[in-house]
């Protein structure tokens, strides 16, 4: 049973995957940031850094064409997007908070109607997750039921060992297929001792209690207190691995253009505005309340999961310093 891989072989595996025609996405230096981006080869993989943005773009791009149209000789022609052309992808080095998110989003993208764009990418992607060795003050995965060693969502999970090796845990059939196909990169040695993982300081929150509090405090002044300063910039939603609201718009002229699906945010003031002028969430605290309710109550009510993996990106990105973990801790202090 192959169960370890050296860092050198991991990078060589990326080279081979790329050569074999796969799109390989992993943490990569982008200016002074690290982002999940397509890798040209194994040397580009950056290890031990939480990328600035989440890995959700691998499945759900910031903006994608969903059809194109063109008027020819007075007749409008609409062309579908050929989803079979979406490349087979390996997402490599996804940290537990990012690797877990697609598994949460599958529920919304496949209930009732199937979102082919998301699901096709999901089907064609194998996730090689990596245990987290470097957290910061904003990280709170441990508070929402995840951990630096959480393999949920990964197809293969790598645990760093001493001496530049990784222990490979095969989680799914997809993971098994990849390891079988590229067996020569893996060895069946036990490897050395595990390296120490990161230790986010936040203790597990009672998410059930938070849910109940949310249920009873829809009209609480709390929302005004914490969210009056929210400027509705949407950074928290864009940077979040689990936020998935989008809009559909046309780009181009009447004669030729594309229809696009692109990210949106429930914090934007016009997000719920109707053609009639009625806006059900017309002030910012109502919109911020929706964000918290959606993550910790509504999504759970509907799909049985919490819509947050504790990556802390929204905490780092918020221009007015709203800290979602602190908001949850504040809620914990209240009596039900």
């Amino acid at each position, binding site marked *: 049973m192959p169960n370890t891989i050296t860092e050198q072989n991991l990078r060589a595996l990326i080279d081979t995957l790329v050569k074999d025609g796969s799109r390989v996405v992993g943490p990569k230096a982008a200016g002074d940031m690290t982002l999940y981006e397509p890798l040209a080869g194994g040397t580009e993989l950056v290890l031990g850094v939480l990328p600035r943005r989440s890995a959700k773009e691998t499945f759900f791009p910031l903006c994608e064409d969903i059809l194109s149209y063109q008027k020819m000789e007075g007749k409008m022609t609409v062309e*579908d997007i050929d989803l079979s052309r979406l490349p087979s992808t390996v997402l490599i080095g996804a940290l537990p908070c990012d690797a877990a998110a697609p598994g949460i989003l599958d529920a919304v993208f496949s209930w009732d109607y199937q979102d082919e764009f998301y699901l096709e990418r999901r089907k064609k992607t194998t996730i090689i997750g990596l245990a987290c060795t470097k957290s910061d003050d904003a990280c709170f995965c441990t508070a929402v039921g995840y951990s630096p060693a959480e393999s949920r969502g990964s197809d293969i999970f790598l645990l760093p060992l001493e001496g530049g090796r990784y222990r490979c845990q095969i989680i799914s059939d997809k993971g098994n297929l990849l390891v079988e196909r590229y067996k020569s990169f893996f060895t069946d040695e036990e490897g050395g001792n595990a390296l120490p993982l990161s230790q986010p300081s936040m203790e597990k929150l009672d998410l059930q209690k938070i849910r109940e509090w949310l249920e009873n405090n829809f009209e609480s002044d709390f929302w005004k207190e914490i969210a009056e300063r929210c400027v509705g910039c949407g950074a928290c939603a864009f940077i979040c691995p689990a936020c998935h609201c989008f809009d559909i718009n046309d780009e181009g002229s009447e004669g030729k253009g594309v229809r696009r699906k692109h990210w949106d945010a429930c914090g934007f003031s016009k997000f*719920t505005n109707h*053609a009639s002028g009625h806006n059900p969430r017309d002030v910012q605290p109502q919109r911020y309340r929706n964000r918290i309710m959606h993550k910790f109550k509504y999504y759970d009510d509907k799909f049985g999961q919490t819509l947050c993996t504790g990556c802390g990106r929204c905490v780092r990105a918020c221009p007015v310093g709203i800290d979602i973990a602190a908001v949850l801790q504040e809620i914990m202090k209240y009596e039900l």
Partner: protein
Amino acid sequence: MARTTSPAEELLYNPCEAEIISVADLTPDEKLFSLRMTDNRPLGHLPGQFVQLSIPGYTEAPISVASSPTRTGFFDLAIRRAGTLTAEMHRKVPGDTVGIRGPFGSSFDLTAFQGKDLLLISGGCGLAPLRSLIQYCQDCRDEFARVAVIYGARNPDALLFKNDLAEWRNSPAFDCSVTVDNVSGGDCFYGSVGLLPALIPPLEVIPKNTIAVVVGPPPMYRAVIEELKKKGMASSRILLSLERQMRCGVGKCGHCTIEHLYCCTDGPVFRLDQVEGVRGAI
């Protein structure tokens, strides 16, 4: 819009082509469009459902189907000029084509209506989705007991479907009442003047054998529901159709959510008991 792929390969977000058959003015701001799918298939909708109307370059908007599926060969959309897409739609003429996705959403449960007295109450542009049900009742009149249509608008100019209202008022099949909030000088109006909820107290309602359907602007719901409750109507016998900003129409994009409900797929037709505990619904 001609498709380059067969309907079997149709993607979730891609529209099918429909042709405008006729256009009629309803009010200074609203027009009624009759359309047909260019491949001649029926739209396949049920009363209460909506479609996503699209024009290339102008994106999409959710529009309720305003005609009954019992009337075949076409379907109606009543469209208020409110944004760039609807303004462009108002410039369209018969023979022009547009994109249609759907039908989407929940519909009125017609089997539960069998043999019941129906109170079909709407205000403003709420008559558009309700017209589909009213026409269905007209065409399958024997399936129901008494049918009352109650409609209110701001003023006589704002009344939608004036021809239909006249027909329904004269029809022995319905008891049809129309009211306007106020009549400005010189308007000729045959109905009553006053707020719509005031039309409910005089009605003879047998709560156990009645189903009420309410479609209208948000403030109307609360007042009408209060009057219906006074008549002894149970929440499970009151149906609502809620308006939200549906963008995808298929329960993904998040724009139309009301707490955990997606208005586009869980709704837009809800029983009152499904939504009265849901904050922000009505």
